[in-house]
Structure formats: structure tokens, C-alpha cells
């Protein structure tokens, strides 16, 4: 009953968002503030605004949310009420972030999103990996949010206002500006899972796939991009911040792409690719030019479409097959079963992967090219080092992306002639290698309630490339195509030879997880033990000692009561002398 209510409410709300976006389209920008109260000379309150950015993001959120809500109707049946409620709450929070004009309102949406993501990741709370992944996600983002809060302080106090529309970089002293933006950047890095706070996103994958599609691909993780775009003139006014952003972005995109190349689970591959795609957006933003901003947003939109699509496809795999691990999928693929039965899924997923890889003609191709183009402009026109670095790393990332997309596509959907039906490269980590194949006859296509969103998003994953108007810089287009080929060919040759070399360093994802565990988790555990012991054995010991000494003294006085009057008298006389001496001493 309640579940139904929430289902309806969820779908309705996301549709409402689309409607609002439609209504607001083309309306002149305006802001209104409400519930203000002054603290000292600052004003704590809320404010909302509308402009193109708001409308764009609202539309994206609305569409993806609608797809996810509809998809979830048949994807997920247990605990549906809380699930849909939380997804709706999340959508509302994201909408808040998008429309916020007050930094505090933005922060509220920002952190409520985090909380929803935590609760949704731990939707299957009986699973250990879900629990730990959820906690990790929340804590890492929370860590970033502390920096974010401090950034708000610095900027707000520096500018004397917490209204985004009133933040004027000209009014703020450069030092404050840099400090504030850098602190905000910390929050962004945490939210968008950039290096060094990247490790939570892959571990967030135990959550339900639609959640991954909505939160960890399309919207929440992209909120960082949105924030920088929203405060673009503030950020771009500080060269230092932009440089840091560029470095982070370039490192992240390569790092994540490399990790994706070695991942052996579909959702994990997608998670890492999300990280690296976000990094591409950040790199575009870090150019500090309007082209860069435009490119980033463009990529954000297309990415929302095809990455959401991919996650939903992965969800279908999970839902129909029961796992998205390569090794399991291979068992079906061996008969070419997967491709034949899950036909729609196969087609849509192919489109998604093509878009992600940047195959010409798909949305990802165009958006990535705008990024490259912006970088190129920035690089050779104003000859900035950042431009060149971005250009190079995005290009390299494009190749890597193509590689892991092809790898995923081939290994999941196609039997390897070379292996003649053997498991091949995933034997060693196959828990049930000796078992015979699962009963593939039960395998069938997902219900249309799930396929509908896929198709819709697939269309978007192609079509969105053209909405921006077709202005191709042929050189760059050619270049990126060549890079894609460079990525695809090795993947194909490896696959056809049935080999899948995975360097251990990549499989361990550069060991950063372990390093963090050793650096932060373990010391905190020790410290907590220390503080508990300290309370019990140091401070508590003093208190107990006081009590015990009182008791002992009391016992001692009882022993002095011998009952012999002459002892009493002796004590008294001694007391007289002592008193005289004491008084004499003090009187000196």
C-alpha cells in the first residue's frame, strides 16, 4: 500500500520536474530569497534562482529520474516503499541544489543527497559489501563537505553574503578567493569522487543498479561539475584553483581509465569510467574559458544519458542473470546465449558503450570533441600549458576508454573462437569453475517496463549529440577517431586471442584503498581505544582514587577511636603542640 503510494509519488515527482523545466525554459533569470534571519552582520537564509543552467540540470535530473523510477517499478520489489521514498527525496535534494541561490540551501541539498546515497547504497543492508560501501561513501563525501562548509565560510564572510548571485569575485580579495574556492574544491572532489577521494564510488556499486544510474552516474556525482559551472566566474578568477583543478582532473581521468581497464565486473568498469568521464568535464572546466564551461556541461548531459543507460543495462544483466561479474556472464555467453536472448539490452548497451567510447556519430563523440576543441582553442590560441595538458590527457583517456568499452562489449556478449568455449581469461577468479554451466534456458528478456527507459535513453545517447548543432572541427574529429581505433584494436586482438592481461597494480587500483585503511582507519581505531582506556584508567582512576582515599581515611579515623581515653588525651596534647608550631610557622 505505502509502497504503491511512494511509487506513484516518485514517478509523479520526477515528471513534475520535467514539467517545471519545460515551464522555466526561456524565462528571464531571477532570484528570490526567503526565511532570512540575520546573525550579527551576516544573513543566514535561503534563496532560489532560475536560469539556463537551472533549466538544463532540472531537465536532465527529471528525465533520468523518471527513467529510473519507472525502471525500478519492476526492477525492485523488496523494501520498495523506503526505496522509492529515498529516491524521490534524493531527486528533490538534487533539484534543491540546482535551483539554490543561497550557499546554505545548496549545502542542504548537497548533503541530503549524500545521506540518500548512503541509505540507498545500503539498501541491501544484509550484504556486508553494501554496508561497508555505504559507510565509506558517506564518510568520504562528508570529509569533503567539511572543506566545502569552510569554503562557504571563507567566501561568504569575505564577500559579506551567502547569496551565489551576489558573490562578485571583484569584491573579494584574491587570497580569500583562492582559499575559498580551493576549500569548495575539496567538497567537489569528495562529491565527484576525484583523486584523492575517488575510492568510494567503485565500492558504492553494491547498491541497486538504478540507484547507481541515477546517483552515481547521472546526477549526484555530476553535482560537482554543476557547482563549478554555477560559480564559474568565482572559480575562474583564481588561477591557482584552476590549475589545481586541472591537475586533479588529468590525474583522475587517466587513473580511473586505467582502473577500468582491469576491472572484471561490469558495474565496476562503469563506475571507474564515470570517475574518468567526470574528470574530463572538470578538465574542460579547468580551462577557465566559456567554451570549456559549455563543453563540460554538454558532456555532462550526454554522459548522464549514456552512462545512465549503461547502468540500467547492467541492472538488466543483474536482474536477469543474477550477476554482472564477467566470469558469470561468460558462462551464458559461451553459448552466445546472452546476446540472443537479451536482444534489446544488447542493442541499447552497444549504443551506450559506443557513445561512451566516442564512436563517431554517437553523443559521446560530439561532447568529447567539444572538450578537445575547447582545450585546443585554449592551448594554441592563448598558448596555456593547461590547455596542452588537458588536450593530451583527454586524448589519451579517449583511447583508454575505447579500450575498456571494447573489452567489456566483446567479453560479455561474444564467445571467443580462440578459446573454443572455454572460460578463458577469467578462470582463475572463477569460484565455480568446475561446476557445469547454469541452466541457460530460464534466461529471458527483461519486462518492457525496464526496457522502455533503456530505449528512451539509447535514443538520447545518440540524439543528444546533434541538439547542440553540428559544428565539427574535422582535424580534432579525425584525431579522436584515430585514438578510438588505437583503443579498440588492441582490445579486439587480445579478445580474439582469448587473453586478458590485468597488471596486478591495476587490479589493486594502485593500492590506494589499502593505503587509506592503513593511514586513517587503523589509527582512528587505535585512538578510540586509547580514549576509552584513558577515560576509564586515567580520568576515571583519579575519581575512583578520590573516593577510595576518602573511604580509607574514614577507616583510619575509626581505628584511631581506640576507646582508651588516655590515647585521646595524648593525641589532644600532641595536637596542642602541633597547632602552636603550625601557627608560629604560618605567622612568620
Amino acid at each position: 500500500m505505502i509502497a504503491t503510494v511512494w511509487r506513484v509519488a516518485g514517478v509523479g515527482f520526477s515528471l513534475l520536474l520535467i514539467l517545471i523545466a519545460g515551464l522555466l525554459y526561456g524565462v528571464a533569470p531571477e532570484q528570490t530569497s526567503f526565511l532570512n534571519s540575520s546573525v550579527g552582520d551576516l544573513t543566514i537564509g535561503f534563496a532560489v534562482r532560475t536560469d539556463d543552467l537551472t533549466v538544463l540540470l532540472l531537465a536532465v535530473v527529471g528525465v533520468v529520474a523518471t527513467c529510473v523510477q519507472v525502471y525500478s517499478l519492476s526492477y525492485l520489489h523488496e523494501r520498495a516503499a523506503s526505496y522509492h521514498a529515498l529516491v524521490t527525496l534524493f531527486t528533490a535534494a538534487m533539484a534543491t541544489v540546482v535551483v539554490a541561490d543561497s550557499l546554505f540551501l545548496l549545502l542542504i541539498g548537497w548533503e541530503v543527497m549524500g545521506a540518500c546515497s548512503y541509505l540507498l547504497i545500503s539498501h541491501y543492508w544484509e550484504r556486508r559489501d553494501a554496508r561497508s560501501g555505504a559507510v565509506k561513501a558517506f564518510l568520504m563525501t562528508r570529509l569533503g563537505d567539511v572543506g566545502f562548509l569552510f569554503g562557504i565560510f571563507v567566501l561568504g564572510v569575505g564577500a559579506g553574503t551567502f547569496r551565489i548571485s551576489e558573490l562578485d569575485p571583484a569584491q573579494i580579495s584574491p587570497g580569500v578567493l583562492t582559499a575559498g574556492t580551493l576549500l569548495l574544491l575539496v567538497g567537489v572532489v569528495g562529491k565527484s569522487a576525484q583523486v584523492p577521494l575517488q575510492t568510494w564510488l567503485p565500492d558504492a556499486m553494491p547498491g541497486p543498479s538504478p540507484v547507481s544510474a541515477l546517483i552515481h552516474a547521472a546526477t549526484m556525482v555530476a553535482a560537482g561539475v554543476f557547482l563549478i559551472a554555477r560559480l564559474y566566474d568565482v572559480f575562474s578568477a583564481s588561477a591557482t584553483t584552476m590549475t589545481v583543478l586541472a591537475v586533479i582532473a588529468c590525474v583522475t581521468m587517466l587513473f580511473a581509465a586505467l582502473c577500468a581497464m582491469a576491472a572484471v565486473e561490469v558495474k565496476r568498469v562503469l563506475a571507474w569510467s564515470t570517475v574518468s568521464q567526470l574528470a574530463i568535464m572538470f578538465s574542460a572546466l579547468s580551462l577557465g574559458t566559456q567554451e570549456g564551461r559549455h563543453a563540460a556541461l554538454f558532456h555532462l548531459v550526454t554522459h548522464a544519458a549514456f552512462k545512465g543507460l549503461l547502468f540500467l543495462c547492467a541492472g538488466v544483466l543483474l536482474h536477469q542473470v543474477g550477476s554482472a561479474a564477467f566470469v558469470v556472464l561468460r558462462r551464458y555467453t559461451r553459448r552466445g546465449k546472452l546476446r540472443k536472448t537479451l536482444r534489446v539490452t544488447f542493442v541499447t548497451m552497444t549504443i551506450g558503450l559506443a557513445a561512451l567510447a566516442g564512436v563517431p556519430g554517437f553523443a559521446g563523440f560530439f561532447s568529447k570533441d567539444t572538450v578537445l576543441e575547447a582545450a585546443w582553442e585554449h592551448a594554441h590560441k592563448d598558448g596555456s600549458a593547461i590547455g596542452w595538458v588537458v588536450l593530451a590527457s583527454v586524448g589519451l583517456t579517449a583511447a583508454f576508454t575505447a579500450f575498456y568499452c571494447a573489452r567489456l562489449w566483446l567479453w560479455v556478449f561474444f564467445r571467443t573462437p580462440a578459446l573454443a568455449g572455454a572460460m578463458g581469461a577469467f578462470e582463475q577468479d572463477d569460484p565455480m569453475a568446475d561446476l557445469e554451466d547454469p541452466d541457460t534456458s530460464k534466461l529471458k528478456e527483461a519486462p518492457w517496463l525496464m526496457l522502455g527507459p533503456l530505449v528512451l535513453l539509447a535514443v538520447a545517447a545518440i540524439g543528444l549529440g546533434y541538439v547542440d548543432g553540428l559544428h565539427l572541427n574535422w582535424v580534432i574529429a579525425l584525431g579522436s577517431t584515430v585514438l578510438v581505433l588505437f583503443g579498440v584494436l588492441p582490445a579486439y586482438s587480445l579478445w580474439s586471442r582469448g587473453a586478458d592481461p590485468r597488471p596486478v597494480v591495476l587490479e589493486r587500483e594502485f593500492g590506494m584503498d589499502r593505503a587509506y585503511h592503513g593511514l586513517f582507519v587503523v589509527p582512528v581505531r587505535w585512538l578510540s581505544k586509547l580514549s576509552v582506556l584513558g577515560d576509564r584508567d586515567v580520568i576515571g582512576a583519579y575519581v575512583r582514587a578520590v573516593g577510595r582515599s576518602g573511604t580509607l581515611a574514614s577507616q583510619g579515623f575509626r581505628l584511631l577511636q581506640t576507646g582508651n581515653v588516655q590515647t585521646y588525651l595524648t593525641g589532644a596534647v600532641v595536637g596542642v603542640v602541633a597547632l602552636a608550631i603550625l601557627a608560629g610557622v604560618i605567622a612568620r
Partner: protein
Amino acid sequence: MNAILLGILALPLLAALALWALPIALGDRLAALYGAVVSGLVLVGSVLLWQRTEGWFAYSGVQQRLGDSMRPLAAVTDGPWIPPLGVRFHIGVDSISVPLIVLTALLTFLCCIYSLKITPRIGRMRSLIALLLVIEAGVIGAFSAMDLVLFFVCFEIVLIPMWLIIDIWGDDHDRAGRKRAATTFVLMTVFGSALMLLGFLLVYRQAGTFDLVQLTNSPVLGGHGVPLAAALLIAVGLAVKVPLWPLHIWLPDAHAKAPTVGSVILAGVLLKLGTYGLIRILVPVLPDATVTIAPYLAGFSTVAIIAGSLACLGQTDVKRLIAYSSVGHMGFIGLGIASLSEAGMQGALFANIAHGIITGLLFFLAGAIKDRHDTSDLRTIGRALYARLPRIGALLTFACLASLGLPGLAGFWGEMLILLGAYNPADSLPRATYLVFMVIAGLGTVLTAAYFLRLIRNLCQGDPADNPASAFAVDLSRIELITWSPLVVLTVLLGVWPGLLLAQWGNL
């Protein structure tokens, strides 16, 4: 107007006496209902008071604002009490005391409602309710006292009743433990208040009056010598109550051993006496000396934040854990006060209220869990509460999120303003030091999140298969729903509309 104040002061006392006058059998049956009615009346009265108060009558933390920040007190009653000692009976309220009074009335009311159905195993409801009413009267008196000695007296009134509540109705599994806890609580607090009294007397020696209004108008200036000694004594005395690290040692035991209503009142109301005293007495009366000791106060508060959170991470008992979380939160409040900035002050005041509501809810929940499992030890309770008690589990999650300061819930604004206050403290304070404190406190919020998530993970989540539901574990009962829903509503309301309180304190 002042009739209302006198009324809500006298009513609980008289009601308690009348209740004791009732015969036992009758009394025990009627007690909870009777208490609910009385505290309900008090609640109505306090809300009526709220409407009439405007502004914050005194805040001389920033000297130059002293002049224009003076606003008349509401509901003033002023008369001689003990002329030979210069003690007056002077009460009144303004907008920093009224919210606390309302909070007190609300929590007492909820405790009485709760006791309608859910009672400690020992029974003796008559005395329990009567003691609750006495505590309510004492606390309201302390919040409305405008005379140092009157404040001191009301401060002491609550001690013996609370001691009895812990000692008689406390954890019925270890009698020795609860007796020790109760005695530690009462003795440490009494020692603290005695020191505080010495401070008051020093103030009297300097200023020649105990009257807070006069003292606030013409504070005791000078940052060293006697004023400093007075400030130290008062600060230490109140710090025992707050409690500030390392004087917090009585708190975990007291909260863990106390019955549910006792914990709620103790954490929700009694701790506020300390912080209220700091804001109402220390800062306005001894401004210069306060500036001298503020950095140390802030330092200890910061240590309290970190130490409390770390200790929480190590707890295996749900009530102890929540108790320690209070240490951390009160540390935040101390930091806000020590920043001596308006943001910090208002943050501290806000956090007072928010902590009262949220921790009250948390202790109610902990009590419910404890009643259902007859223990508060996490390892014995087992995991997967979501599967066994879904509603209570969900509420617990909500309360934890609120308590770790999730924006959009009441817990956030206080901490945010406190950190903001630490970011730019009063001009007379060393800013760099406070920046360090701010950063550490910010990390403290992460630790706070960590231990609350750990609690949820170890208690609510987990595999239902190996944590089967116990037979008598019924989910949220109606009385619990009725009792807790106001707290939940307030948590959300204050979270989305902080102006509700901040407007009260306005521009100082």
C-alpha cells in the same frame, strides 16, 4: 505575565507535594496522568511566555554593543529575599531563556506521557513523577533566575531528585553500578556548584550585588586578579555540569544507568544549565576575564569534541555511546561560547535546543531498544534491527543523521554557526588559534558521522538470518509514536526553518 512565570514555577512544586500526599495505591495509578496534566499546563504557560518576550536582554560579549543591546526583561518579579545577605528574589525571562524553558516543559511533558504506558520495572511511579516535576520547577527557576544566588539555589534543587531517580529507578541489573553512578554525579556536581558559589561571592565582593541585571549593565571589568579567579571558579563549576572534558567522567555512567526518562531529562535539560550559565553569567558579568580564559575554554571544548567522538567509536553499549555523543556536542557548544562572537553565541544557543530535542529522541529510542532486549549492550542485542523493529530502526537512523549534523535537520545549524563563530571570533581573541580549533572541530564532525554510522551498521543493519527476531520484540507502540513525533517534527522544522529561533535572538 509574571503571574504566568510564577505559575509555571510554583505549579510543579505544589503538584509534586500534592502527589506525595496521595495514598500510594491511588497515587501510583494516577501519577503519570496527573503529571501529564500538570506538565502540560506548564508547557502551555511557557509557550504563552514565548509570545511575549522580545529580544535578548543582555549580551556584553562585544562591549560596544552593550548600550543598544539592552532590552527589558519580560515577566519580571523582583523582591527582597534575604536582606542580610543581599539576596533578592528576582526572576524574569528573555528570548534566550524562554526557548530553554519551553524545551524543559516539553521534555517533561513527553516524559510524563511516555510514563502513562511505559514504566520502570520497580514501579513507584508516584515518586518518579513527583521528582520529575520538582526537577522541572528547579530547571525553569534556574533559567529564569536573575539573581546569582537564586540561580545557584535552583541549580542545586535538581541534584537530589536526579540522584534519587538514578539510584532508585536506574538500571536494575547492577545495583552497585547505578548507586556509584548516581553518587559520582551528585558529588561532582555539588563540588562544581560550590566552586561556582565561591566565584559568585568573589563577584559580590567586587560588585556588591548579586543582581544579574545590574551586573550585566555594569560588569566586573579587569582581566586578571580577583575577576579572573571568579571567572575561573564559575567556569570550572559550570564546566562540571556541561560537562567539559576532562570533567565529563560522571556523565556516561549517569546516563547509562539512569532510567529512560531520567536520561532524557538529564541529557535534554540538565546539561543545558551549564551552558546557559556560561552564556548568562560568565560572559556578560566578567567580560574581560572571560576573554582571558576563552581560548582555554575553547581548547578544552575542542578536545571534548574529539575525545568524545573517539570514545563513542569504542563503545559497545548503546546508552553509553549516546551519552558520550553528548560530550562531543556539548564540546561544540562550549567552543561556540568561547568564540565570544555573535555567530558562536547564537550557534551555542541553537545547539542547546537542538541537542535537547535530538538527544532526547535518541535516549527515548535507546530506552525502547533496551526495554525490548533487557540490555543495552550492542553485542547482546544483536544486529539487523531493520528486520526486527523496522520502524524503531528507521527512527534511530533518522535521529542519528540529525545528531551528526545533517543539513536540513536541527543539528546542523548550531554546529554550523559555532564553526562560523570560530572562523571569526571576537576581535580580542587570537584568531589563528580559533582557526585551528575550527578545523579540528570540523574533523570532529566527520568522526561524529563515523560513530553514528557505526552504530547504525552494528545495530540496525546486518543479516537477519543470524539475528532472529526475539519473541516479545514488538515494533513502535502507539504511546511511543505519540511521544516521539513532536521531537521528530521539531527536528525537521528547526532544520528547514532556523529563523524560527534565530529571529528570537536577532541582531544582538
